[in-house]
């Protein structure tokens, strides 16, 4: 780790030896339009990915709790999480294929125009975000579900006696009591989401043009394809700092340390 910081301050061609250049790499990052593009793309991805994933997970978890305790159902929802990112990317790459993918066949059948999901500059990032929502929603839902189990039943019983509807119990009781758990889940998923790589590497490879070149893919390209190791390390330091700040912010805003259940 300390070596990571050290490399970030060097000009390190992968074949040579590191040369100390202080903060030059970080100055260069500030002026690098591709870095800012990658950061923007990554942010767009994280917002879409985390937004949908968290909402779906909460809905699924609440439904699981209310409808059934079935382990089979929970296991089924967990299946996508068990296969690798590469496999998830592959299956959806096939389902969303422009020529003969099932989804586009369906679109054509309904009369809508086909969409080149991975090739279109508007759709590429949402599509990649969707693939990863698909892979993680069951897993996240189980995390939320575990959080729901910690809310004691008497809270709902009291609410129901007071004539509160299911809908308002959810907003007034479940959500506030779930907050500390939700904060931890968000920190974990956001940290993971910022490091999206596999799906991009297998499907679009950063293209078309720079539309899907996320930060980690950019680091990979700089460090391993172009051999600019010092610069790649510097970007990874920046990514690390972003993650640390994001985690601290989330814990702060959601007051993760304290529970309303006292």
């Amino acid at each position, binding site marked *: 780790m300390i070596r990571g910081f050290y490399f970030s301050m060097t000009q390190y061609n992968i074949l040579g030896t590191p040369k100390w250049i202080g903060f030059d790499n970080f100055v260069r990052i500030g002026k690098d339009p591709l870095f800012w593009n990658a950061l923007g793309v990554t942010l767009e991805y994280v917002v879409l990915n985390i937004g949908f994933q968290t909402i*779906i997970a909460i809905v699924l978890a609440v439904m699981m709790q209310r409808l059934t305790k079935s*382990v089979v159902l929970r296991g089924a929802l*967990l*299946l996508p999480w068990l296969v*690798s990112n590469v*496999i998830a990317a592959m*299956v959806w790459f096939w389902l969303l294929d422009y020529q003969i993918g099932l989804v586009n066949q369906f679109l054509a059948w309904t009369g809508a125009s086909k969409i080149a999901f991975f090739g279109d500059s508007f759709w590429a990032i949402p599509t990649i975000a969707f693939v990863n929502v698909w892979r993680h929603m069951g897993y996240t839902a*189980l995390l939320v579900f575990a959080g729901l189990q910690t809310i004691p039943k008497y809270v*709902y019983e009291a609410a129901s006696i007071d004539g509160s509807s299911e809908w308002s119990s959810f907003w007034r009781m479940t959500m506030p009591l779930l907050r500390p758990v939700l904060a931890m889940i968000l920190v974990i998923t956001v940290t993971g989401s910022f490091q999206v790589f596999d799906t991009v590497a297998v499907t679009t490879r950063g293209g078309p043009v720079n539309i899907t070149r996320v930060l980690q893919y950019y680091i990979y390209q700089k460090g391993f394809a172009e051999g600019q190791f010092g610069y790649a390390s510097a970007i990874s330091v920046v*990514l690390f700092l972003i993650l640390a700040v994001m985690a601290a912010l989330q814990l702060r805003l959601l007051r993760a340390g304290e529970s309303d259940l006292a």
Partner: protein
Amino acid sequence: MTTTPVRASATPQARKHHRPVSLGRIVAWVAMIAFLIVTLFPFYWMLRTALSTTRSLPSAPGSLLPVDFTWGAFERVLGLGSRAQAVAEGGSGASVNFWLYLRNSVVYAGSVTIGQVFFCAMAAYAFARLRWPGRNLVFGIFLGALLVPPIFTSLPNFILVKNLGLLNTLPGMILPTFLMTPFAIFFLRQFFLGISREIEESAALDGAGPWRTFFRIILPMSTAPVTTLAILTFIATWNDYFWPLLVGNTEQARVLTVALGVFRSQTPAGSPDWAGLMAATLIAAAPVLVLFFAFARKIIDSIGYSGVK
């Protein structure tokens, strides 16, 4: 499986007859089933495509059953069919060293799992029980390391492996995670803390040293969490893509995930060999799915614990 509403306990008799058929409940079930279909359908589609002939796929892209049913794709991937037959069915004809990749994946995931669980169990025990100077400080550093993104450590690790001359070898891939990960230590430490001290004290009275206590008493008592950890580690390592891509991107050291990416880019004349690709993904996913079906309950129960606590 039960459809009795959770809240029925609040008003035992009065509402029991209405609740199960309420409109909201039907809507919720429909939504749940929709989610299930979205989750499971792609797996069926993998199977359907893998059993089809690639050349015939465009003729019936919407068919729910395999098009031109054949085992050809699986034979192609496993290197069983002839080259001519593979080309006729739409494969690239290039040979795929599937067995080699499978072996690499097994060695990689297997050794990481064994090494990590073994060493982390010892370290976790040290953190949980033994008293040594600076213990809490070192543990704090470990906890901090939980939040460090893998990309950040993989660059220095890459240099380390390169300097050791282990680039593109399996030992090089295994090394960085062989000894420990913060998560595994944390996971086991929490469990060891819960073991009653009296058991160890009585072992000490009978003359057992820390080593003996650990191997003869603590480990046998902890089979459940240790197996759970081993399963989770195996799945994560099996599915790992980034690190093996960096360190093992030659034919000899390639694991399945990396090989799948390469397989996709071997595109014969425009359209990929979809049937072969889906057959390969299915086989690559199979070991993890088998593990899951064998230990489903353990894995599902561990998630609430590992993620949130």
